[in-house]
């Protein structure tokens, strides 16, 4: 185990290995001693090793680390899109075996269907799940309002800016009210200003929906502003280096948060951990 230095171990259950001994509520996500090895013809690559992490329901956890540290692999494990080589992943108290349907997933690229309008892209989630149409429509309208997409319902993806496309992807991921939202560098392709706006919106949406969020990001500022805890990973093989508890109020104003000493301390600390490997902030 490499994640030794845990500043606020009291409210973390991740060292509890024995499920029967866990008296608290079942965590939304539980990752236990997970390792992932990819076998190629030339060599074996260990993408992840010794990763253990518990995420409590409603918590916002950000995962930062240099490229190639297995951040995205970790999210795919939770979603059941990948299988771990050893260890186990539990989602909502159930062992993950195969793709999970009780999650929302947002990729770096919006991955929208080009022939569908924004609204119809959001409703794809409902169509495939065969949710009642009227209910799905009402929920879509609610999310469209929440993300500021009003007036763009009928626009095709190529008519939307990168930020708007990502809003559509976010609405689609939230349509079925998933208990867990997985986001893989969702704002990585956006310009800095749009990215800040999206951070503020994501913070508000998370507060409003109470969804558990796992966010993979390259941006230290984004991680600290949004998350309750920041998981710092190191590469080759990818493993958890440290988990930082963010000492900021639950509701955060963007500019005000940026100026806080706690924010600066946390980002400085994480930047120190990552060295020069971090892309930007």
């Amino acid at each position, binding site marked *: 185990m490499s994640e030794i230095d845990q500043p606020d171990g009291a409210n973390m259950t991740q060292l509890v290995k024995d499920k029967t001994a866990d008296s608290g509520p079942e965590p939304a996500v539980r990752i236990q001693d997970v390792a992932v090895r990819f076998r190629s013809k030339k060599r074996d690559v260990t993408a992840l090793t010794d990763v253990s992490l518990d995420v409590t329901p409603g918590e916002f956890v950000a995962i930062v680390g240099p490229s190639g540290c297995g951040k995205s692999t970790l999210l*795919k494990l939770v*979603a*059941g*899109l990948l299988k771990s080589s050893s260890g186990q992943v539990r989602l909502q108290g159930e062992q993950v075996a195969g*793709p*999970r*349907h009780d*999650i*929302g*997933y947002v*990729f770096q*690229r*919006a*991955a*929208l*269907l*080009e*022939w569908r309008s924004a609204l119809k892209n959001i409703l*794809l*989630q409902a*169509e*495939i*799940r065969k949710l009642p149409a009227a209910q799905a429509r009402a929920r879509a309208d609610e999310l469209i309002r929440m993300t*500021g997409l009003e007036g*763009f319902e009928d*626009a*095709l*993806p*190529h*008519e*939307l*800016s*990168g*930020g*708007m*496309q*990502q809003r559509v992807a976010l609405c689609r991921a939230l349509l079925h009210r998933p208990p867990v939202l997985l986001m893989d560098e969702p704002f990585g*392709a*956006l*310009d800095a*200003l*749009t990215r800040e*706006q*999206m951070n503020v919106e994501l913070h508000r949406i998370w507060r409003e929906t109470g969804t558990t969020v796992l966010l993979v990001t390259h941006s230290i500022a984004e991680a600290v502003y949004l998350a309750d805890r920041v998981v710092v990973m190191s590469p080759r093989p990818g493993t958890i280096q440290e988990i930082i508890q963010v000492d900021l109020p639950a509701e955060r104003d963007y500019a005000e948060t940026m100026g806080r000493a706690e924010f600066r301390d946390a980002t400085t600390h994480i930047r120190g951990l990552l060295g020069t490997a971090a892309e930007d902030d």
Partner: protein
Amino acid sequence: MSQSALSSAPVKTAGVALRESPSARERFTDAAEKSWRPVALLLACFVAWWVIAALELVEPYLVPSPGKTFEVIVDKPDYLWQHSWVTTYETLIGFVVAVAIGVFAAVIMVYSSTVEKTLYPILLFAQVVPKIAIAPLFVVWLGFGMAPKIVIAVLIAFFPVVISMVTGLKAVDPEMLQLSSTMGAKPWQTFVKIRFPASLPHLFSGLKVAVTLAVTGAVVGEFVGANEGLGYVILQANGNLDTPMLFAGLLVMSLIGVVLFVIVEIAEKLLLPWHASRRESGVTTAF
């Protein structure tokens, strides 16, 4: 896609942006801008033909004047119309069958790697065999009717359909497929809602090639053995050294190809307005 959308500099107001779509007027001037050069070149060729014929630079029985050629078309409309219709009919049936078989073959190849590994190399090999060379064989097998012409049209048009459809089905964004599996999509749902529509732009670029090849296939079939169709008209005219009729046949045949091509293009615009408008806005390049 998001990257390309970003790079074309959308109008931004507080992170909210909607790209302007071109007005009808702009689209018209755009089309005129694009097409005047080829049209001018065609006209130049036509004028050159006229000059060569009028000055009798070449013997008239070798190159008839445009006037003579049109005279033939105007004089014998029923004759040309009847044979054109035969060729068009063979072409259309051949094209439709090629599309049906091609799309079906592409789908099973994409969904079963065993089928792909078995079929794909054979398809590639079959493409190497000059199908025109086996046309006489089909006449022996199927007689002088329309059947051998349709079969040759199918054989020639089939290949671009399969290749473009396989490319299209495989070009689907893998993240989109992962997303659909987190939605719990059944394979048929993924196919109907994501894979098939996503492959259509590729399919249509194959269809445009296939439809013109189908005309070639039908005419080649008629060359080998027929008593009707434009291929037959051209052979007859050739035998009688009736070059005006030969040129008329060629002209009508080209016209059929152009019209069919345009019909496919219009169908593409109607069925895939999202793709057409995206292409026009210059965000993407055609396959």
